[in-house]
C-alpha cells in the first residue's frame, strides 16, 4: 500500500506536481496515466525519495521510504532503463544492488532468468538495446522479490512479444497479492493491464477510478457496419429509428445499437453486409479529452499533442484488441 498525501513539487516557478493525494492498493495493477510532462516521473521519484517533495508526504506501508530497511525487499522500481552503469555487466549491475540489501547472490541469476537475459548476463550493459535495458531494469525491480512494484513506462522499447510478456508478468505479480503501480501515457496499454486508474495532468489529479468505471463512463459503444448497398441500408436504418453516421471508407457507425438488432434488421431486408461489428472505444480519446485542458497549457506541446475533439472516432490504437478481448 502506497499513500500519497498532498504531494507537491515545485521547480522554481513551475509546479510539476500539485497537491496530489491518492492510494495504491495491493493486489491490483494500478495504472498511472498522464500525458508527457504531466508529472508522472517526478511523482514516482518522490515516492522513492529521490526527489524531495516541496510539501506533502508519501508513505509505503505507513513508513517513509528512508525508514525502510533493505527497501528492495519491499519495493522494486523500474524508473529508467538506462539507470545502470554501462561499463558493468548485467550480472554485476544486479549483484551490487543485491549486496546492498543482503539479497542472496542466487537471486541475481533467478531475476535475470525471469526476464530472459541469462545469455547476456556477462555482457556490458552499454551494448544492450533499449528493450534489453528495460528487461534488466525489470530484473532489478524483481531482485528482492518485493511486495510493491513500480514501473515507469515499462513497455517502452519492447518488441510486441516483450510487451505481451510484461502485461502477463504484471498480471501474474498482481495475482500474487502484490501492489503494482505502472505509469504510461498510452491509455490503450493501460486498458489491457490496469484494474485501477489514476490520471494526472499538469501535476493535478484528474481521475482516481476503477478501470471498469472509467470505461463505462468514458467509452462510447457503437456498431460499425459496411455494406455494398449502403444507400438502401441507410434508408432502412433511418426507417427503423437508428441514426447512422458515415465515418469514411464507406463505413457506417450507429450509436447505442446492438449487432444483433442491426444484423437481424439487415437480414429481414435482405441486405448484404461486409462488416458488422461491435465497437467499444475509444478510451484513448476519452483520456485525451480528459487531459486536454492540462496539456494545452504546456508550451512545448501545443502542436502535436492538441487533441482532435471534433473528428469522429476512427479505428483507434488498441481497439481491435479490445473487441477481440470482448469476443
Amino acid at each position: 500500500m502506497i499513500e500519497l498525501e498532498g504531494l507537491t513539487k515545485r521547480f522554481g516557478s513551475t509546479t510539476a506536481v500539485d497537491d496530489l493525494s491518492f492510494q495504491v492498493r495491493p493486489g491490483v495493477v494500478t495504472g498511472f496515466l498522464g500525458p508527457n510532462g504531466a508529472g508522472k516521473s517526478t511523482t514516482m521519484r518522490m515516492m522513492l525519495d529521490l526527489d524531495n517533495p516541496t510539501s506533502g508526504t508519501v508513505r509505503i506501508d505507513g513508513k517513509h521510504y528512508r525508514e525502510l530497511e533493505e527497501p528492495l525487499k519491499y519495493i522494486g522500481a523500474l524508473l529508467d532503463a538506462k539507470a545502470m552503469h554501462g561499463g558493468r555487466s548485467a550480472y554485476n549491475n544486479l549483484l551490487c544492488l543485491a549486496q546492498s540489501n543482503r539479497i542472496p547472490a542466487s537471486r541475481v541469476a533467478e531475476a535475470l532468468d525471469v526476464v530472459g537475459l541469462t545469455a547476456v548476463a556477462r555482457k556490458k550493459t552499454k551494448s544492450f538495446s533499449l528493450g534489453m535495458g528495460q528487461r534488466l531494469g525489470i530484473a532489478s525491480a524483481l531482485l528482492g522479490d518485493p511486495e510493491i512494484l513500480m514501473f515507469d513506462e515499462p513497455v517502452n522499447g519492447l518488441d510486441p512479444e516483450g510487451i505481451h510478456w510484461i502485461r502477463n508478468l504484471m498480471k501474474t505479480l498482481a495475482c500474487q497479492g502484490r501492489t503494482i503501480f505502472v505509469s504510461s501515457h498510452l491509455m490503450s496499454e493501460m486498458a489491457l493491464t490496469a484494474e485501477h486508474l489514476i490520471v494526472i495532468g499538469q501535476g493535478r489529479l484528474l481521475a482516481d477510478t476503477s478501470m471498469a468505471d472509467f470505461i463505462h463512463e468514458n467509452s462510447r459503444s457503437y456498431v460499425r457496419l459496411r455494406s455494398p448497398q449502403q444507400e438502401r441500408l441507410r434508408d432502412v436504418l433511418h426507417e427503423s429509428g437508428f441514426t447512422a453516421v458515415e465515418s469514411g471508407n464507406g463505413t457506417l457507425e450507429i450509436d447505442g445499437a446492438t449487432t444483433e438488432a442491426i444484423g437481424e434488421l439487415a437480414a429481414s431486408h435482405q441486405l448484404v453486409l461486409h462488416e458488422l461489428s461491435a465497437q467499444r472505444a475509444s478510451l484513448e480519446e476519452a483520456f485525451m479529452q480528459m487531459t486536454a485542458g492540462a496539456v494545452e497549457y504546456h508550451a512545448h506541446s501545443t502542436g502535436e499533442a492538441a487533441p482532435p475533439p471534433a473528428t469522429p472516432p476512427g479505428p483507434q490504437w488498441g481497439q481491435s484488441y479490445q473487441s477481440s478481448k470482448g469476443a
Partner: protein
Amino acid sequence: MTTPYQQQAPYQPQGGPAAAYSSPIPVRDAHLGDALASEWTKIRSVRSTMWTLGVMIVLMVGLGVLSAVVVSAADADLEGQSVLSLGFFGVLLGSICVITLGVLTIASEYGTGMIRTTLTACPSRARVLTAKAVVFFLLVFTLTTVITAIVGGLQTLIVDQGSSTGEDWFRATVGIALYVATLGLLSLAVGTLIRHSAGAITVMIGVVLLPLVLAMFMFSESLRDLQQALFEYSIPNQIGVLYDTAVTESGPAGWDPLWIMLGVTAVALAGAYASLNTRDV
C-alpha cells in the same frame, strides 16, 4: 529465433499466492557492511578502475625507477637526501589518476543514472557515501603503500648512496599513501558536489596544479608573500615536504601536509554529505 534472449514463463515464486504478498527473503536491519560489499563490487567491476590504477602503477613504478636509473648513471649527488625522494615525480603524476578515480567513483553514477538505482536500494545517503569513501580510500591506500614500498626498494638497490631512516621509509610509503588516498577522497567529495565527471576532474587538477602555476607568474614585488604561500601550500610542494625535498624553507614541514589535506577533505566531505542529503537526485 534471432533474439539473444529467451522468453520465460511468467514469474512464479515458490511461496504461492497470498492475500497480501510479502517477500520470502527475510528482512533485517541493513548496515554499512552491506553497502561496503556493494561498493566493492561496483569499484572492481568497471574498467575505469583498472585503467586509472593501472596507469597510476605504471607512472609510480616507471618514473620512480627511471629517476633512480638517471641518478645512478649520472653519478649525481643527492646531497644527503633520502633515495626514496626520487619517487616524487611518479607519485605526483600518479595522484592525477587517483583524482580521476575518486571523482568517477561517484560522478559516473550521476552520469549514467545509476545513482537513482543506488539510492533506491540504499536510501541512506550517508551510508552510501561512507561506503564509497571507505572502499575507495582503503583500495588506494593499500595499493599506494605497496607500490611506494616496492619502488623505494628498487631505488635503494639502484642508487647506492645515502641511507634512509625508518622515519624516511614510513613517510615515503604510509605517509605518501595516506596523502594520496586523502587527495582522492577530496576528489570524491568534489565529485559529489559537482556531479559531473569532467567538471570535477578539471576542478581537482586545477586545485593540484594552479597554485604552483600562478605562483610562477607572480613577478610583482607586492605579491611576494602570496607567491610564497602559493608555492608552499601547493600540493606538489606538500608532497615534496613528505619526502623532505620541499623547494621552500618555511611553510609546512614534517607531517603538516597530511593534516592540512585531512582538514580540507573533512570540510569537503561534510559539504558532500549535506549536499547528497538535501538535493534531488
